């Protein structure tokens, strides 16, 4: 069954879109990532114009994140206070990131910028997470519990705030900065930023893993909503029909994912996410390194 997408102006298979949305939704529910880093390249692959793919995936991330956050709210694994601090920083960062994106588009190398940031960030974060969680998994296998560090250097700053759900009493400055950095990157890479946010919350802020997923999803809703609105107004590239089919698959997947997530151990969760992140990184790096079968590409309009 084919469906004609009015904004993308292409016809695609309905079940393909539902399946894509479903897979990304499951991941979103398990790991608390929006899945933008996965769905955007997948949409390129099935022939959706890149501009439409980037903005529409932001829209679908809103839906799957809302669905997953509601499941997390019921289990009280969302630190709302921390989420608000993060998203204030996030939106400031996103505004700045949009400007950087526009500048790079003028220079005509936006594709390269996006691909290189994907390889760099996915590679570094994936490798760090993989090594760390593998170590943790081996240690827990031997039955030796590591001592959890309660205080990182970033905690010794002014403006201390109590984050009760996370069990933290730390300065508001590091979460604001983390939020801002993620906002900049997510605007440039066209993703919610969960795959950067999750490790940043664990390794920089020292938040417990169970709270990290729900809180990350909570702030992703707002960053992705902001991105969707910006793209709809400035580029007019959000395709509601495309988003609709992706999100029908996505919200169902997210519900399944958030239930699978609670059954897995934190270390297993992290190592799985690390493997997926490294896999996508490897694929994009390969595309940059290997000679493409078609050296030419077409971009519509004057640009």
């Amino acid at each position: 069954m084919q469906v004609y997408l009015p904004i993308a102006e292409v016809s695609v298979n309905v079940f393909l879109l539902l399946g894509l949305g479903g897979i990304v939704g499951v991941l979103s529910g398990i790991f608390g990532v929006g899945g933008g880093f996965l769905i955007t390249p997948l949409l390129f692959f099935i022939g959706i114009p890149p501009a439409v793919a980037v903005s529409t995936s932001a829209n679908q991330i809103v839906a799957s994140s809302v669905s997953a956050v509601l499941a997390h709210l019921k289990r009280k694994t969302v630190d709302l206070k921390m989420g608000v601090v993060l998203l204030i920083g996030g939106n400031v960062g996103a505004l700045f990131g949009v400007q950087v994106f526009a500048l790079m588009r003028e220079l005509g190398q936006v594709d390269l910028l996006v691909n290189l940031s994907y390889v760099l960030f996915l590679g570094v974060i994936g490798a760090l997470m993989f090594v760390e969680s593998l170590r943790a998994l081996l240690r827990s296998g031997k039955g030796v519990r590591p001592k959890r560090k309660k205080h990182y250097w970033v905690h010794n700053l002014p403006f201390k705030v109590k984050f009760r759900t996370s069990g933290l009493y730390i300065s508001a400055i590091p979460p604001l900065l983390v939020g801002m950095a993620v906002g900049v990157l997510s605007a440039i890479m066209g993703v919610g930023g969960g795959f950067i946010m999750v490790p940043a919350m664990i390794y920089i802020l020292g938040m417990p893993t169970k709270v990290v997923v729900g809180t990350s999803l909570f702030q992703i809703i707002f960053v992705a909503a902001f991105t969707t609105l910006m793209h709809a107004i400035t580029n007019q590239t959000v395709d509601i029909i495309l988003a609709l089919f992706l999100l029908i698959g996505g919200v169902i997947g997210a519900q399944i994912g958030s239930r699978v997530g609670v059954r897995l151990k934190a270390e297993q969760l992290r190592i799985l996410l690390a493997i997926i992140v490294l896999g996508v990184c490897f694929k994009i790096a390969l595309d940059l390194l290997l000679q493409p079968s078609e050296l030419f590409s077409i971009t519509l309009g004057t640009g």
Partner: protein
Amino acid sequence: MRVLLAIALLISSLMPLQAQEQVVAGISQDQISITTDFDGSELLIFGAVKRETAIQQDAPLEVIVTLSGPSGPLNVRQKSRRFGIWINTGNARMDAAPSFYAVNTTAPLDEILSVKANQIARIKVNNAILAIGAFGRVANPGQYREALIRIRENDDLYQLNEGAVKFSEQTLFQTRVTLPANLTEGDFETRIFLLRGGEIVASYQDTLDVRKVGLGRWLYNLSKTNSPAYGVLALIIAVIAGWMASAVFGYFRR
């Protein structure tokens, strides 16, 4: 077809003599609606040759039918290897390239169309693309145009169907053009040429309206005319869908 011929002859008898041979033609549809379940379409273009005198015997009459979609500017980019990775290094601007272009003929194009006639009527896809801007900017503009044609031919957006026009008794012709699903809306131009000895002896032109309809049309218009409202609508749908999925799953768990 008999009826058509009769109609053609009737029309021809009523009209004053303008040329020795003229085209009388019709298209199976004067409008194509792109609905949400649009999956491509097929167009039948048919007609007859109207003539006052007996059929000339010196050279056979040939027919070329072209169908072209709305034209627009675009950029063709070329990748090459820099510092070990493949990045866009060349960029050629095409001033106007049709979004769709089909050429259907009675015989191989080079045998029935002279170089001069092609240049005048811009029949071959090469001539249908305006690439003045590309010349002088890049070293090999022809290569960029070839790449554009190659990519669009793979997507069935550019077609050359030699021998696809059925032409009987040097009078009646008909051909089918398959329109792919990834069609851009706008005015599609149909042109029919009669050729003898490589030269154009008569031509005919008509436009075909390709439009999105229904929900697709409404969404497309809203996204252009009131983009903030469109953005908010997209977000509302997303939030409701997310909430509904959560509510439904919560209900089943209880």
